């Protein structure tokens, strides 16, 4: 049974059009610097203002499906934290998030000379979201027990003085799902911890009420947010991955708007022809 989308020829030409709209800009020389939105700037300032005696928790809840958006966000945030020497901890409620985070951090640790255990730690994958978050408010080392390799947290200097929610300067949730709501409801809210979120763009509209009420201090809107954050960390002419990919994303948007308008025009024309005969 044909799993394609109706008549083949039109469908395959549409797919090729998209592939072209994405691939051609890969080889373009010029890159258009993004306009930095108010939410991305707010998250940048929130990270900047975390004092040295506090730790930033970077919770990575994504799996392979959304690395296209969540990985550039994670990379941009880690670049900033390592550049300004902020202490941070990676964790996640999806088994794969912390694994991707670990690899990116190791790659960037060489670039910014921030050794593991001294500037950053990986607490690894946790299940039972609600109970873990509630337990973390009181006793983070007790809840985490060991890092992702099994080394007791007491042995890692980055964890010195980190006991409970009061020692967390900022929690940033990089997520493709509504897990940020659990972080807000069971950790950031009750623990009185500032919270930022880096969602896939799908979730962005839901989050504006929480920005308005101050429950969330800053946000990266999908890949566009990652590109904007990169231009904040590296300056306007940065050529990081987020910014280079956004040129292709721009082309796809033009293609889609054109197709929607074209599709409707042809539909109206066809309907008029039908009523005319």
């Amino acid at each position, binding site marked *: 049974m044909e799993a394609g*989308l*109706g008549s083949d020829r*039109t469908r395959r030409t*549409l*797919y090729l059009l*998209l592939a072209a709209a994405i691939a051609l800009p890969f080889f373009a020389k010029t890159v*258009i*610097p*993004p*306009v930095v*939105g*108010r939410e991305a700037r707010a998250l940048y300032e929130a990270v900047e203002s975390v004092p040295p005696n506090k730790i930033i928790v970077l919770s990575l809840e994504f799996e*392979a*499906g*959304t*690395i*296209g958006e969540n990985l550039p966000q994670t990379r941009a945030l880690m670049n900033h934290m390592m550049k300004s020497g902020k202490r941070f901890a990676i964790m996640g409620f999806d088994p*794969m998030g912390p694994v991707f985070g670990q690899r990116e951090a190791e790659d960037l640790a060489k670039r910014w000379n921030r050794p*593991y255990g001294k500037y950053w730690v990986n607490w690894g994958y*946790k*299940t*039972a979201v*609600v*109970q*873990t978050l*509630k*337990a973390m408010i*009181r*006793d983070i080392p007790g*809840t985490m027990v060991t890092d992702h*390799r*099994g*080394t007791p947290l007491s042995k890692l200097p980055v964890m010195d003085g980190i006991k409970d929610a009061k020692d967390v300067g900022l929690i940033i949730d990089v997520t493709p799902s509504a897990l940020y709501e659990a972080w807000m409801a069971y950790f950031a809210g009750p623990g009185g911890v500032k919270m930022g979120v880096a969602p896939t*763009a799908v979730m962005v*509209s*839901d989050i*504006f*009420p929480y*920005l*308005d009420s101050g429950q969330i201090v800053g946000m990266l*809107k*999908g890949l*566009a947010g990652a*590109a904007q954050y990169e231009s904040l960390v590296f300056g306007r002419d940065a050529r990081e991955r987020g910014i280079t990919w*956004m*040129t292709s*994303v*721009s082309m*796809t*948007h*033009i*293609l*889609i*708007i054109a*197709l*929607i308008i*074209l*599709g*409707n025009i042809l*539909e109206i024309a066809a309907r008029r022809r039908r009523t005319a005969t």
Partner: protein
Amino acid sequence: MFLSFLTAPRHGTQLFLFVLGAVLVFAAVMAALHTLPPRAKRWLIVACTFVAGLFYLLEFMLPPGTLMPPPGPGEGPVTDNFLSRYVEPVGYVTQIIAAVAIGLGVINLARVNSAPLLRFRPGWQNSLAFFTGLIVMLVVGLWRWKLLLNVTTVAQEKAVNESTIGSLYRFLFDGLYSNLGGTVFALLAFYIVSASYRAFRLRSAEATLMMITAFIVMLGNVPVGTAYLTGWIPDGHWYSFLKVEHMSDWIMNTPNMAAQRALIFGIMMGVIAVSLRIWLSLERGRFFEQEL
């Protein structure tokens, strides 16, 4: 005295005996409960659900200091009530129960996939792919985990990753698993393109309003929209609102925010209602009602 006997850690054969004792006691208790008449069993389920719900509810509702010794000299105000210190252990217990339950789904998948394999029905090679994928990832994953268990230095970790098991694991995880997962998601972009041309019709005024808003938000997100389309409008004037990123910003922060907030208030009352029904086992109908 008896309590300290119970809570003293045990090792070696003593540990084995105590664990065996625990299993026997647990089995005895469940056997005894099994003899209860169906009405009593149903009441037991209702009671367990109620007590479980009451724990978190009371822990949240009781003000700090309830049934707690007053703070000693020099100590800050008490911030917990007498239930607060049980929150963590309950969390760990739930984690273990949830992890044990994962096997349930695997059994079902194995059941569904074993039929074509055993009877050699068409599509048996797919079920074979399923079982090979499952067993190989499980074995290689656990084997590599075992090797990494007592690794602390980066050099040791590098050695394990370079070993055959480490490379085989990267072949399965990075090569197959991550790419398969990532690409399934990328299909969506292609589906959207064909849907844009063929499915997104402006059937009604509402759909048109939705689409115009979508165009503004889309153009506001991408550099091409902000730079070329309305980049020429200068900032700082009343009409600079017409810049795509400002219009998109306003749409997201005012109408979208207000509508989403109204939805939130609806969901808030919905969650209260359904939590009450589950907690008090009022939830009649389908799953909860049949005889035991």
